[in-house]
C-alpha cells in the first residue's frame, strides 16, 4: 500500500468515525452491509475504468453500457426465456465486444478516446431507450430466478455479518486486477504505454494490442457490473439508469491516484476511492442532511480531504528539510495531487 492509498484510508476512517459518532447506526450491521453492497457494484466498474485511465485513455460510456446491457440482460431472461447462465455469458461477451470496438477505433483508426467513448455514451443510451421504447425494463411482480438472485444480489453470513456477494465479487476482481496490474508483465505494459506510448513501441511492446486489451477488460468488467446493478435495482429506466456512473468511476479512479494523463494508479486506491464515495452517500442519508445537499457534502468532504492531505505533505516536507535529510524533489502530494509531468 503506497502513501497515496494510505492517505485515502485515513480520510475514510476519519469520515467514518465522525459519522459513527454523530449517528451510531452507521456501524449497524445492516447499514454496513448495504454500503458494502454499493461498494461492490460501483467498485467493479471503477476498476474497469481504471484500466483504461492507466493506459492514458478514458471511457465515458460506462453509464450507458450499464443501461444497455442491463436492459438486454433483463429482456433476455424475462421475455425471451434465455437460460440465465447463457444470458450472463452473452452480456459479458457483449461488454467485451464493445470494449474491442472502442479499442480498435482508438488504436487502428486513431480517433481520440474521448470522442469514441462520447459517441458510445450517446449511442448506447439511445439504443437502450429505443429498444425498450423508453419503458422500464424489469422483472415485474413475482418473476423469480432464485439462483441468479442469490448469486448476484444475495448475501452470505460470514461470522454473523451478511456479506453481500457483490462485494465478494469485487474482492476477487480486485485481487486479480491487482496481480495483473502490479505483478504481471501485461500490467507493466499497461503502465508503460500509458506513460510513454512511443517509448513503449520502441521497446518492442505492441502498444496497439495493449490499448485494445485495456478497453476489452474495461468492457467485460462493466458488463459484469451492469448485471449486478440490474439485479439490484431489478428495474431499469433506460433514460436514466446508470447515468453519471462514468463520472463516479472516473472520480473513484482519480481519487485513488490515477492520473488522467495515464501511467499512474493503483487498484487499492481505486477500491478505496469507491469506498469513500459510497460512505459519503451513506452519510448524507444517515445524518439527515437535506438530500439537496448530498452532492455538496460529497464535494466538500473530498475537497477538504485533498486539502488536508496536501497540507500534511507540505508540512512533512518542510520538517524533513529542516532535519537536513534529503527529500525527494518534486514529490507531489499523495491524494488527488497533481502528478508531476
Amino acid at each position, binding site marked *: 500500500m503506497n502513501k497515496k492509498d494510505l492517505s485515502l484510508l485515513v480520510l475514510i476512517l476519519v469520515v467514518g468515525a465522525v459519522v459513527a459518532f454523530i449517528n451510531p447506526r452507521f456501524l449497524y450491521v445492516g447499514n454496513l452491509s448495504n454500503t458494502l453492497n454499493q461498494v461492490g457494484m460501483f467498485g467493479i466498474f471503477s476498476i474497469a475504468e481504471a484500466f483504461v485511465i492507466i493506459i492514458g485513455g478514458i471511457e465515458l460510456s460506462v453509464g450507458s453500457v450499464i443501461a444497455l446491457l442491463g436492459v438486454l440482460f433483463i429482456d433476455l431472461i424475462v421475455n425471451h426465456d434465455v437460460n440465465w447462465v447463457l444470458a450472463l455469458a452473452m452480456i459479458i461477451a457483449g461488454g467485451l465486444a464493445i470494449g474491442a470496438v472502442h479499442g480498435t477505433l482508438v488504436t487502428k483508426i486513431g480517433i481520440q478516446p474521448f470522442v469514441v467513448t462520447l459517441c458510445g455514451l450517446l449511442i448506447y443510451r439511445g439504443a437502450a431507450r429505443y429498444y425498450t421504447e423508453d419503458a422500464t425494463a424489469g422483472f415485474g411482480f413475482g418473476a423469480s430466478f432464485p439462483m441468479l438472485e442469490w448469486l448476484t444480489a444475495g448475501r452470505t453470513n460470514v461470522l454473523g455479518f451478511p456479506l453481500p456477494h457483490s462485494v465478494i465479487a469485487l474482492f476477487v476482481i480486485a485481487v486479480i486486477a491487482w496481480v495483473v496490474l502490479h505483478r504481471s508483465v501485461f500490467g507493466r505494459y499497461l503502465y508503460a504505454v500509458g*506513460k*510513454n506510448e512511443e517509448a*513503449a513501441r*520502441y521497446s518492442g511492446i505492441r502498444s496497439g494490442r495493449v490499448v485494445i486489451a485495456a478497453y476489452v477488460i474495461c468492457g467485460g468488467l462493466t458488463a459484469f457490473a451492469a448485471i449486478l446493478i440490474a439485479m439490484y435495482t431489478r428495474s431499469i429506466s433506460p433514460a436514466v439508469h446508470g447515468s453519471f456512473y462514468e463520472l463516479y468511476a472516473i472520480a473513484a479512479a482519480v481519487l485513488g491516484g490515477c492520473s488522467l494523463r495515464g501511467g499512474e494508479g493503483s487498484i487499492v486506491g481505486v477500491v478505496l476511492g469507491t469506498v469513500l464515495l459510497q460512505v459519503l452517500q451513506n452519510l448524507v442519508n444517515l445524518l439527515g442532511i437535506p438530500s439537496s445537499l448530498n452532492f455538496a457534502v460529497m464535494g466538500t468532504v473530498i475537497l477538504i480531504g485533498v486539502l488536508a492531505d496536501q497540507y500534511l505533505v507540505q508540512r512533512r516536507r518542510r520538517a524533513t528539510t529542516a532535519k537536513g535529510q534529503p*527529500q525527494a524533489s518534486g514529490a507531489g502530494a499523495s491524494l488527488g495531487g497533481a502528478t508531476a509531468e
Partner: protein
Amino acid sequence: MPEPFLELVDISKNYPGVVALDHVDLSVSRGEVIALIGENGAGKSTLMRVLGGVVEPSGGLIRVDGAERRSLTVGEAITAGIAFVHQELNLFDNLDVAGNVFIGREPVYGGPLRLIDRKQLHAKVQPLLERLGADFGPDAPLAELSLAQHQLVEIMKALSLDARLVIMDEPTSSLTLTETDRLMRVIAGLKADGVSVIFITHRLNEVVQCADRAVVLRDGRMVGALRREELAPAAMIRLMIGRDLKSLYVPPAAPPGDSVLDIEGAVTSTYPDRAVSLSVRRGEILGLAGLVGSGRTELARAIFGVDPLQAGAIRLDGEPIRVAGPRAAIDHGIYLIPEDRKGCGLLLDVSIAENISLPDLSSYLRFFLVNTAQETENAKAQRERLKIRAPDVETSVGSLSGGNQQKVVLAKWLSMRPKVLIFDEPTRGVDVGAKQEIYDMLRRLTDAGVAILMISSDMEEVIGVSDRIAVMHEGAISGFLDRSQFSEHNVLQLAVGHAVE
C-alpha cells in the same frame, strides 16, 4: 575481414522539404566498431532509426543474414539482434531502473499469467549497473535520476539485450569523462565478445579511441569512410564540414572585470548539507565541471529560481537579490539554457520561430499583438547565424535533428540582452563546426560584458573554452583552476574530490 551480416543498400528517406538520407550504403561485420559522424542534421539518427525499425525508408534494401527486405519493424529489429540507444531518451519515469532496462523482456514465472520475477530482474540488472559504474540501485525510481543517469539506463537497456549489434546514438552527450571512459571499455568488451557497435558522437576523440572505422555523412549522403589508421580529428572534420577548424580557445578582449554574480553558501535540496559559493566576473567564461550527479544542474536550477534555494544568498552586481521564479531571474538579467531540451527547453510541435520568440514575446508587441513578421524575421536571422538546418522557420522543432534542436534552444536566449548566462551543457549533441560558432558567440557575449557560467561534461570544451574552471564534487565546489592550471588531470582530481597538487 569477416562477411558482413547486415547491409543497408541504397537507403533513402524523404521528409517534406528534406532529403534526410540520399542513397546511403552501410555494412556491418561481426565485432566491428563503426563510428558514424557528421554535422547536425546529416542523417545519422535517421539512418540508425531505419536500422532499428523505427523509420520506414523511402527506398533501398536492408539485408539481414542474407535475407532482403524493404523495412524492419521494431520487433524484427530486436529479433535480428539489434539493440538501440536512442538519441532522445525513451524511458518510463513511472517505473524503476530495473523495470526500464528489461521493459518488453521481463523474466517471468507463473506460466500463462506471466508474472514478473522481480528477484531475477534485479539480479540481472545489478551486473549491468556495476559494468557502467552507476551510483544508483536497480530499484531507484527513474523520476529521481538526472539526465545523465537516464542516459546510463538507456545504455544498460541496450547492453542487456545480448545483441549482435548495439547502436548508440550519442550515448555520451551528457556523460563526463569518467563515465565515457567506462563506456569505452564496455565497447571494447563488446567487440571482444564479437558484438558489433555503431556509435554516433560529436566528440571526435572518442572516435579515435574506440572505432575500427568511421563513416561520415553529409547532407544525407555518405561522403567518406576512414580506416582505423586514418582516424584523426582533423581528417574527420575535413570530411564532415569540408574545411579545417582553428583551435578552440579565443582569449577575452579585455581582462575580466568585477564579479557580476555571487553565489554564497547556496544549498540545494539534493545535497542539503553542502553549500556552494562561487562568483562569475564580468566578461569571463567560468566553466563548471564535475561528475554525473555532482549537483551542477541542481545549482543552476536554484539560481534560476526553478527550485527554491534551501539556504544561501545570490548577489547581482553586489546587490542581494531574491529569485522567486524564472521570471524574476529573467527580469534580473539571469538566463538559463537548460540541459534537458526535450523536457524544459522546447515546445516540440511548435514552429522554430515561435520557440525562439517565446521568452521574449513582449519585444515583438505591436498593439498588444504579436508581430509575426518581425518574429519570422528574427528567427530567420538566428537560423542563419547558428546554421539551423531546417526547410524554413515554420518547421516544427520536433522534426529537427537533435543538434539542430539544441541550436534552437540556444537561439531562444541569444537574441536577448542578458547580464548573466548560465549554459547547462550548451553543445550537447552539437557538431564540431557549429560548436565553434557557438564558442565564438560566447566570446563575443563576454566581450560585450556578459558573465557566463558554463556547465559542461565535455572535458575538451571545459578546458578549451573556459577562462576559469570551478569543479563540483557531491554538491560542493572542490576547487577552482586558473588557465595556467588547466589539465584533464587536474579537473578529474577535483571532480573526484581530491585536491590539486
